């Protein structure tokens, strides 16, 4: 065998190597899966003296979570792990229930309607009593005493829009709603205590309703593109825009008292936790909150700074800091990229690690699977079609499905990305092997090569460029989708993108989006080179 001309030997050698790595890969993968599943279920038991604080992916939630975290750090010996910016109520709640986080800020109204699916009530005390009793009974989850302010839904209309007909209440709005264009957040559109209920209560019938991202709504309203929007009563931006908040004259919106939702297990394990968090009872009113939010949203100050200022103003923590840093102004893109280079490099490394790990595991699983399917042609098409279904699950939904099983953070993110990477590799491995030079395969068989030799010496080397093309597709998908990992707290370049979307700051968005796009292009180009390099020489039209 040593006498073979180098190229054939080389191509076959890599193929051979790949096959063996593949077999070992399956074992490694099984081991890893086992490891991951135990890590997921034991994550609570495994950590002692450590509390995981989560938050949803909007600034007030992050601010409250950061205050919880700093308070715990400042007044107990517990270490705090932050999982801020998880995607929405469902993700946070599932993470809490699964024990992936120990507490996160929540609102009584959300607990009542979105989680318990109870009809909304106008009575704040009754709402709190209900969620407390039910969460405790059903899931051993505890609501802290309310923090003192409410962040409820309200409808707002730009004052400029009222020149001809001044509106004061939602009933006033109902009378003219058929001429109004509305822009509402995604959650508001779906929730029972959002638009559907509101429409029934007031008989609202808008001319046009658009689903819009929170911060874009404000800009659209200021630009006169929409006439009505849903707002949160503590939104800091209200200070910057001239909007009239309509009076909820028929008491539709349920109370949304801010509080903390904590796992009973965590409170029992660390009794000091309840005592320390209790210090925040009634600590903030809506006006204070709006100002804090303003600093975050419009001033672009970091959550850590604003949280520290708020806590030290209440003398709950002491700081040896020489006063708050001046709020950073909005920067142009390139100075911003430069001044944030260390963070961005860290994010890029995180991003590459997530995508690379997922792709590596994808190769280990998908190539052996493709080889196996090539030998079991009858089941191949159905199996590949089933794997193809993963491509049709929206990424954010796939990430959400991972939480009950794997919790939050890197493990579910890598698992989801791994699932995405499988299809292109399996499909190309299978079809590349199946369709590789059928006449050459036929003659190899006619001259007495065994099926194993044909696979090894003919099919694999000839299919290599096709397999590589699948790997390349998988790599680009994985790098692109990894931006969404930020939604379940896995870091990566999605973090600045999500943060920028919340602040409606294009510079911050681009500081994540540009490196992510550059990364995808670079990887595509690199793997394109590998694809050419791996192509057996005789297949090149123009031999070097």
């Amino acid at each position, binding site marked *: *065998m*040593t*006498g*073979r*001309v180098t*190229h*054939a030997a080389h*191509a076959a050698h890599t193929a051979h190597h790949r096959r063996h790595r593949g077999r070992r890969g399956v074992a490694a993968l099984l081991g890893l899966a086992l490891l991951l599943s135990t890590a997921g279920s034991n994550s609570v038991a495994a950590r002692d003296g450590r509390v995981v604080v989560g938050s949803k992916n909007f600034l007030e939630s992050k601010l409250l979570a950061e205050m919880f975290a700093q308070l715990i750090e400042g007044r107990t010996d517990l270490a705090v792990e932050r999982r801020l910016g998880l995607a929405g109520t469902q993700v946070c709640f599932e993470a809490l229930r699964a024990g992936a986080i120990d507490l996160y800020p929540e609102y009584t109204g959300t607990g009542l309607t979105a989680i318990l699916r109870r009809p909304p009530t106008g009575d704040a005390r009754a709402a709190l009593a209900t969620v407390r009793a039910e969460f405790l009974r059903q899931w051993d989850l505890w609501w802290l005493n309310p923090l003192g302010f409410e962040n409820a839904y309200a409808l707002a209309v730009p004052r400029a829009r009222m020149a001809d007909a001044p509106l004061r209440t939602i009933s006033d709005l109902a009378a003219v709603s058929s001429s109004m264009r509305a822009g509402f957040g995604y959650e508001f559109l779906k929730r029972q205590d959002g638009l559907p209920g509101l429409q029934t209560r007031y008989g609202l019938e808008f001319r046009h309703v658009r689903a819009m991202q929170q911060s874009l709504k404000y800009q659209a309203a200021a630009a006169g593109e929409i006439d009505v929007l849903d707002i949160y009563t503590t939104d800091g931006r209200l200070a910057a825009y001239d909007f009239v908040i309509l009076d909820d004259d028929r008491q539709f919106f349920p109370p949304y008292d801010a509080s903390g939702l904590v796992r009973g297990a965590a409170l029992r394990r660390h009794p000091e936790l309840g005592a320390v968090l209790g210090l925040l009872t009634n600590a903030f009113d809506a006006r204070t909150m709006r100002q804090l939010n303003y600093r975050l949203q419009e001033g672009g100050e970091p959550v850590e700074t604003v949280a520290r200022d708020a806590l030290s103003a209440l003398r709950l923590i002491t700081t040896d800091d020489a006063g708050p840093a001046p709020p950073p102004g909005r920067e142009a893109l390139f100075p911003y990229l430069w001044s944030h280079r260390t963070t961005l490099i860290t994010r890029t490394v995180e991003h590459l690690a997530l995508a690379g790990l997922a792709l590596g595991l994808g190769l280990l699983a998908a190539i052996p699977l493709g080889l196996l399917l090539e030998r079991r042609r009858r089941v191949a098409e159905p199996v590949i079609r089933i794997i193809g279904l993963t491509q049709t699950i929206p990424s954010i939904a796939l990430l959400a499905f991972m939480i009950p099983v794997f919790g939050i953070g890197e493990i579910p993110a890598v698992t989801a990305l791994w699932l995405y990477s499988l299809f292109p590799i399996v499909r190309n491995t299978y079809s590349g092997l199946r369709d590789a*030079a059928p*006449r*050459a395969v*036929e*003659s*190899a*068989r*006619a*001259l*007495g*090569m*065994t099926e194993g*030799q044909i696979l090894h*010496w*003919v099919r694999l*080397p*000839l299919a290599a460029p096709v397999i590589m093309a699948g790997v390349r597709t998988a790599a680009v998908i994985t790098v692109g989708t990894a931006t969404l990992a930020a939604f379940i707290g896995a870091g990566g370049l999605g973090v600045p993108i999500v943060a920028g979307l919340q602040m409606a700051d294009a510079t911050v968005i681009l500081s994540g989006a540009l490196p992510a796009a550059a990364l995808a292009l670079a990887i595509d180009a690199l793997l394109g080179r590998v694809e050419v390099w791996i192509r*057996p*020489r*005789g*297949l*090149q*039209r123009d*031999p070097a």
Partner: protein
Amino acid sequence: MTPAPVLSVRDASQVFGADVRALRAVTLDVRHGETLVLIGESGSGKTTLLRLLNGLQTPTSGDVCLHGASIRAQDPIEIRRRIGYVQQDAGLLPHWTVADNVGLVPWLLGWEPARRAGRVDALLDLMNLDPRRFRTRYPVELSGGQQQRVAFARALAADPDIILLDEPFGALDAMTRHALQQQFLGLKQRLTQTMVMVTHDLDEALRLGDRIAVLKEGRLLQIGRPDELLRTPAHDDVAHLLRYRAEGRRP
């Protein structure tokens, strides 16, 4: 006197899927040292019959014997390494050089590299391909006729005593085809191999074949020497085939 058959096909039928009857009860012998030509229109079962001979296909019913023993009882890999095969379109491995392609069967049989290289060069010489120029080329760098000659050299490499050729001069222009036919006739004199060759060109069959087997719709219509076929066609279709040729050749 008639030498004992090297290969014999006994009442072999081949059915593909539910109703494609590619061969229907074909019985014939291939004699030692002869060149038997299989002729028939497209789809008549020529390739299928050839594939039965080296066990690439097992007949649905009937049997094929190699040196008197049923090939069902023998290792097909073993058989194929002992029988040369030239495919309808050369079928060279595109990612292997000419030398690797020609040396394929010797390599499978575990020949020493030096012995293999010597054999490859000798065969390329035999095929009028200068080894120094062609050894390291890839199939894409060859003309159609050169590819056919490499495929032919590859079939001869391990000195098999039987060679199967499926339209070896198929997709070639008339001049190259003629030149290769001449070369084949020359080789035939020097080689002692038994050959079974498929063609759908009657001229080629008459020129190269010691005997000719005529197939139609999976049935063997007639088998015999060229002059026998010309003199006493056993079937209207054979007569038709010959007449057609005679007319075609009229100036």
